[in-house]
């Protein structure tokens, strides 16, 4: 029976691909929904608040409630708007954001496709997302959205250059544009690209924040100046699409950063045998999550919620037990490390938002053109020179390029 199913799937590979796409799409939508929850929670803790607490235990059902609210809202199209473009724009943003995941390797054995121009594809498609913003802002027939969209366009142009050049530095080391190959290369070299390209990493990090229009570079939606920026005139479901696109883009840039710089699905120090105990990190993580949930439950003021948290903690314990089985542990190793790294990046995104005030427009351009691009260029040149003189890059040889 199972054998038959496997044979059938091997014969019809496209079905397997469809199943993978479905899994990625559904999981991603869930992650994005709870990313909003996480953002609200983390932000409120940083501001000495509690955040959503009333919808479900600890506000856990808040994303569901928000979704329902947005779907039930009236869908307003402003008079004088270019209706076709107005309706199309949010869809472009969302499609561009989701398409990128088709080439991101979540684990060594789990990715939708591995094409030899993976990174080029990602950069190309994710830049299409800006069309959604510009068209949406233009078609609204309103000045705030238009100004927001123009800012967004200018910002993307400025920072995409720096981000692209930072990534080229990594490409010079990896000799490949394929995302899977880039991670494999890091495994062969036994060192992550961050340690070889620290400057490129920092530049990409800053440019990524700017490209996703997030604080402190969220000028397209600067509410004190532009109301809500490009999506001022959007409401209901279409607004939800923009929202979805923004948060999906956050996940996208985190995934790219993890793949390019932090070794993708690789365990930290994967080549060091002495650190093999790190393979048990998933078990520890689940146990830790269980303990944390139990602690939350003990602090909870509503008796019913205590039972819920107890059940959740038990579930975590069961999962930890399940993960402790060696076969399962090996299977989830890659996806676990990838997930942890991406989560760390997402947390950092929220952390920046909770810390930094928004840049002024001229400051934004100044940082982009006067600092980021020259430094990225310098890094690129130094890397290229080192790469030219050291034909086969070994970690020790490339270590010379650390400062570059």
């Amino acid at each position, binding site marked *: 029976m199972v054998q038959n199913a496997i044979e059938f799937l091997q014969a019809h590979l496209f079905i397997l691909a469809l199943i993978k796409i479905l899994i990625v799409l559904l999981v991603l939508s869930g992650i994005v929904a709870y990313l909003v929850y996480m953002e609200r929670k983390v932000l409120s803790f940083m501001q000495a608040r509690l955040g959503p607490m009333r919808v479900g235990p600890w506000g856990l059902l808040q994303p569901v409630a928000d979704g329902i609210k947005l779907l039930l809202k009236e869908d307003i199209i402003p008079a004088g708007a270019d209706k076709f473009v107005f309706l199309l724009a949010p869809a472009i943003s969302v499609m561009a954001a989701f398409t990128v995941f088709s080439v991101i390797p979540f684990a060594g054995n789990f990715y939708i496709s591995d094409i030899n121009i993976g990174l080029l594809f990602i950069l190309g498609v994710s830049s299409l997302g800006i069309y959604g913003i510009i068209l949406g802002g233009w078609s609204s027939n309103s000045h705030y959205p238009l100004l927001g969209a123009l800012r967004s366009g200018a910002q993307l142009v400025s920072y995409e250059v720096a981000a692209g050049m930072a990534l080229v530095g990594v490409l010079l080391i990896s000799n490949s544009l394929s995302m899977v190959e880039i991670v494999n290369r890091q495994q062969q070299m036994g060192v992550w690209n961050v340690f070889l390209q620290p400057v490129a990493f920092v530049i990409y990090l800053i440019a990524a924040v700017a490209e996703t229009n997030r604080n402190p570079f969220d000028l397209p939606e600067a509410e004190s100046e532009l109301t809500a920026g490009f999506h001022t005139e959007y409401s209901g479901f279409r607004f939800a699409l923009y929202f979805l696109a923004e948060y999906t883009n956050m996940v996208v840039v985190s995934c790219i950063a993890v793949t390019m710089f932090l070794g993708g699905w690789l365990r930290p120090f994967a080549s060091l045998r002495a650190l093999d105990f790190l393979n048990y990190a998933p078990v520890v993580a689940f146990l830790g999550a269980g303990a944390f949930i139990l602690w939350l439950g003990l602090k909870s003021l509503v008796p*019913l919620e205590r039972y819920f948290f107890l059940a959740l903690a038990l579930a975590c314990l069961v999962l930890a037990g399940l993960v402790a089985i060696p076969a399962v542990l090996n299977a989830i190793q890659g996806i676990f490390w990838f997930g942890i790294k991406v989560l760390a990046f997402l947390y950092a995104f929220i952390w920046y938002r909770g810390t930094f005030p928004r840049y002024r427009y001229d400051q934004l351009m100044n940082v982009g053109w006067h600092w980021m691009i020259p430094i990225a260029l310098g890094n690129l040149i130094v890397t290229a020179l080192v790469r030219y003189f050291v034909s086969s890059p070994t970690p020790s040889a490339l270590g010379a390029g650390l400062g570059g």
Partner: protein
Amino acid sequence: MPMVLTDLIRRVFLVDLIKGLKLTFSYQRPSATYTEQYPLERAPVAERYRGAPRLNNHPETGETLCIACNLCSLACPENLIAVGWARTEDRKKRLTTFTYDLSRCMFCGLCEDACPVDALELTQDFEIAQYSRQGLIWDRQALEEGPRPTRYTR
């Protein structure tokens, strides 16, 4: 010159930004949370806080402590207390009705001070919102029941 150098180092390694990040990170500790979940948790009010009035009963016999002396009514600057009484056969005053109009009350506490037997008391209950003005006029029964803090259940 060293001044310039330290400044440069601070700029290059984004020292100030990292300091800011450290501060916001530290605020995530649970003890820093300032929010109180109101219906579930209540902030303690000050000891001398004057809130909803109550007409005290004798703790053992359950009879009212009020001797219908009408002093509270006379003390009230707003004239919002109406004490009703009847004479018993032995010519003693007995409390019959007691009306307290909370909608006009400014919680000055003069009635409480005037009461010679500590029958009338302004409690610490602050949840006295009503949907109508009528609901704010409390009769003797409501006053004797005392504060009814909202019970929150889920």
